[in-house]
C-alpha cells in the first residue's frame, strides 16, 4: 500500500525504499491516470442523465464519510459503530442552522443563516461531538470501544427523536438548498447552460460533491503521509510501541476521533442535500453498518479503498432500483421476492464475508493483485513482499 508504512520501514527507511527513478516513473503514470479520471469526472454532467448525477452526488457524500471512518477504523484501529451518529449531527445541524422556522404539523425552529454557515457549523459540531466522545474512547480498547460506540447511535437516536423542534421528529424536515455567495444550487437562479446542456440542480450538486470529495481525499492522503499519519498507524499496530516511540496515545486518539467525525459531519450535510430532507430515522445503526461495509470492502487503511467501497455500497442499491425490471431475481417493490434494496444488502453481506475470508485488503488489495500479475518482476533486489504488506494492513 502506498499510504501505509510499517514500523520497520519507519525505523529503516533506506532499507526498503525502491530506487528513486522507478518511483518517479510510476508516479507520473499514476498522476496521468488520475488527471484523466478527473477530466472525465468534470465533463460527466454534460453527457450523463440526471439519475446518474444524483447517484454520483450521493456517492461523493459517502466517499467523504467513508474516508473519515477509515482514518479511525482502518488506519488507527479504533472500531467505531457510531459513524451514523456523527453524520446525524452534521446533517441536523445543517438543516437547523440554515433552515427556516415554521412547519405545518409540528413547530420547527431554524436559524435561517446562509447554507455555507450551516455546512461549516455541521462539520464543526460533529467534530465537537467526536471530541466529547473521545474521553470514553480513550479509556476503551478494541471491541469494548465498538460496543460503546454502538450505544452512542441509540442514545443519539433517542435525543434526536426527543428534540422535535430541531429535528422535525419522526417526519423529519426538509433540507434547505445549498448556495454559495449568491449562487444557488437549485435548478434555476441564475439559469446556466454549458455546451448546450442546462445545468440544473443535479449538475450543480455534482460539482459541489466532486470538489468536496476531492478536498477530503487529498487531505486524508496528506495526513497519512505526514507525521501524525504515521503516529496513527503505529497506534494501530501497537499502542505500547507507539507510546515508547514518543507518540501521545490519548492525544492522537482524541484527534483522530475529531477528524473522523468532522468528515462524518460533512458527509451528513451532503446526505441531507442529496435526499432533500432529514429524519432521525435515517441515522440508525444500519447506516453505521453500511459505512463499515464500505471501508471493509474497499480496503481497511486505504483512502482510495474507502472511496471505492463507498462507490460500490452507495451506488449498488440505487442502480438495482433503477434497473429492477431487467435484473434476474430482483423484483419491483411490493411484488414479493427480493426487492432491489434487499438484493443489494444480501450482496454486501456476502461481500463482507468473502473479503474477510479471502482478501483482507479489500478491493484495493484485489486490484493490487491483478496489476501485480502484469507488472514485470524487478531484476535486482526484490521489493518487500506485497503479501505481508496487505496482512499488516488488516488489524
Amino acid at each position: 500500500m502506498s499510504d501505509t508504512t510499517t514500523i520497520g520501514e519507519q525505523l529503516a527507511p533506506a532499507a526498503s525504499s525502491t530506487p528513486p527513478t522507478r518511483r518517479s516513473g510510476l508516479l507520473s503514470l499514476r498522476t496521468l491516470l488520475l488527471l484523466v479520471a478527473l477530466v472525465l469526472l468534470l465533463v460527466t454532467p454534460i453527457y450523463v442523465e440526471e439519475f446518474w448525477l444524483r447517484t454520483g452526488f450521493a456517492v461523493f457524500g459517502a466517499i467523504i464519510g467513508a474516508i473519515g471512518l477509515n482514518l479511525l477504523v482502518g488506519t488507527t484501529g479504533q472500531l467505531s459503530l457510531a459513524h451514523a451518529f456523527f453524520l446525524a449531527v452534521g446533517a441536523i445541524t445543517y438543516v437547523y442552522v440554515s433552515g427556516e422556522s415554521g412547519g405545518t404539523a409540528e413547530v420547527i425552529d431554524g436559524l435561517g443563516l446562509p447554507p455555507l454557515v450551516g455546512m461549516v457549523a455541521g462539520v464543526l459540531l460533529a467534530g465537537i461531538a467526536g471530541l466529547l466522545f473521545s474521553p470514553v474512547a480513550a479509556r476503551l480498547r478494541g471491541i469494548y470501544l465498538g460496543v460503546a460506540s454502538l450505544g452512542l447511535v441509540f442514545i443519539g437516536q433517542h435525543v434526536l427523536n426527543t428534540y422535535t423542534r430541531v429535528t422535525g421528529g419522526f417526519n423529519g424536515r426538509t433540507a434547505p438548498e445549498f448556495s454559495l455567495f449568491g449562487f444557488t444550487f437549485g435548478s434555476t437562479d441564475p439559469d446556466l447552460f454549458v455546451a448546450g446542456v442546462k445545468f440544473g440542480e443535479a449538475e450543480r450538486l455534482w460539482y459541489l460533491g466532486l470538489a468536496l470529495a476531492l478536498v477530503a481525499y487529498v487531505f486524508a492522503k496528506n495526513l497519512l503521509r505526514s507525521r501524525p499519519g504515521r503516529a496513527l498507524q503505529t497506534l494501530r499496530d501497537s499502542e505500547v510501541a507507539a507510546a515508547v516511540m514518543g507518540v501521545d496515545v490519548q492525544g492522537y486518539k482524541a484527534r483522530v476521533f475529531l477528524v473522523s467525525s468532522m468528515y462524518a459531519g460533512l458527509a451528513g450535510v451532503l446526505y441531507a442535500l442529496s435526499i432533500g430532507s432529514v429524519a432521525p430515522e435515517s441515522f440508525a445503526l444500519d447506516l453505521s453498518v453500511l459505512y463499515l461495509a464500505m471501508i471493509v470492502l474497499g480496503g481497511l487503511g486505504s483512502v482510495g479503498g474507502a472511496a471505492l467501497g463507498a462507490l460500490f455500497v452507495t451506488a449498488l442499491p440505487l442502480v438495482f432500483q433503477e434497473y429492477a425490471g431487467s435484473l434476474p431475481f430482483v423484483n419491483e417493490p411490493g411484488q414479493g421476492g427480493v426487492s432491489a434494496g434487499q438484493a443489494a444488502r444480501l450482496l454486501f453481506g456476502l461481500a463482507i464475508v468473502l473479503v474477510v475470508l479471502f482478501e483482507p485488503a479489500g478491493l484495493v488489495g484485489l486490484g493490487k493483485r491483478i496489476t501485480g500479475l502484469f507488472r514485470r518482476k524487478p531484476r535486482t533486489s526484490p521489493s518487500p513482499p506485497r503479501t505481508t504488506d496487505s496482512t499488516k494492513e488488516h488489524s
Partner: protein
Amino acid sequence: MNTFLTLLLNGISLGAIYALIALGFAVIFKASEVVSFMHGSLLLFGAFTIAKLNASIGFFPAFIVGVLATAGVGLLVERLLINRLRGAPVISLAILTIGIDIMMLTELTRRIGSDILNAGHPWGGDFVRIGGIGITENRLYAMVTAAVLIALFFTAFKFSSWGVAMRASAEDGETAALMGIKLGRVSALAWVIGAGLAAVAGLFLVGSPTPGVAPGVHSVALRAFPAAILGGLDSTGGALVGGLIIGIAEAMASGYQDQLLFLGRGFGDVVPYVVMILVLLVRPSGLFGTKELTRV
C-alpha cells in the same frame, strides 16, 4: 410500593432473558475470541422458526426444532468461517459476523414481511398476580427457564470436562492445545451453546408483553450487548450480573416514564446503553472482566 416490586420483578425477568443472550456472547468470546454481532439475527431466526413450525407440529416440538436449528446455524458459522480464521484480529472477526448478520437479517425481514408472527406459546398472554405484584406468565416462565439453564451452564462449566477444557483454552490457548485439548471442538461447542441460548431467549422475548415475532426483535436483542460488556465480555458470571442490571434498569426507566419525562419519551429503550457507557467510563473492562495486561 407494589409498583416498585412489580417493576423489579419484571426487570429481573427481562434481565434473565438478557442474561441468557449475554451468556452466549461471553461463552463464544471466551472460546473463539469472536464478538458475535449476529446474535440478534440468531435470536430472530430461532423465534421465527418456532413461530413457523408450531402450527404444523405443535409448540414443544417446534421449540426443540427451533433451538436445534439455531444451534445448527451457529455450528455452521463456526465450522465454515470462524474456524478458518483462527488467530485473525478480533475486529475483523467482529466485522465478519456483521456481514453474516446483514444477510440473515435481510432474509428474515423479507420472510416476515409486515406481519407479526405469533410464536404460539401455550401460555399466551395470561397474567399472574402474587399479592399485588403482577407479571405475565411468559415472563415468569422465562425467569424459571433462565434460572435452570444458567444453573445447568455454570455446573457444566465448573465440573464437566468440556467446562475445564473451555476454561483452559480461554486461559492460554496454546498450552491447552499442547495438553491435548481440541480448540476447534471447544469453540464449536461454544457456538452451539451460544446460539441455542439465543433461540431460547428469542422465544421468551417474543412472548407477551411483546406482540410477537417482528424484525424489531433484532434491536431488542442488541440490548444484551450492554449486558455482556457491562459484566465484562470474558466473564460468564459478569454476563449474569450485567443482564440483571440492564433488565432492572430498563424496566424501572420504562415504568417510571412519567417521572422521567424530561429525558424524553421511550427513554427506557436507551437506558441499557447509558448504563453501559457510565460503567465503562469507570471500569473500562466491565465489572468482572479481566484487565488487559500489556507486556513488553
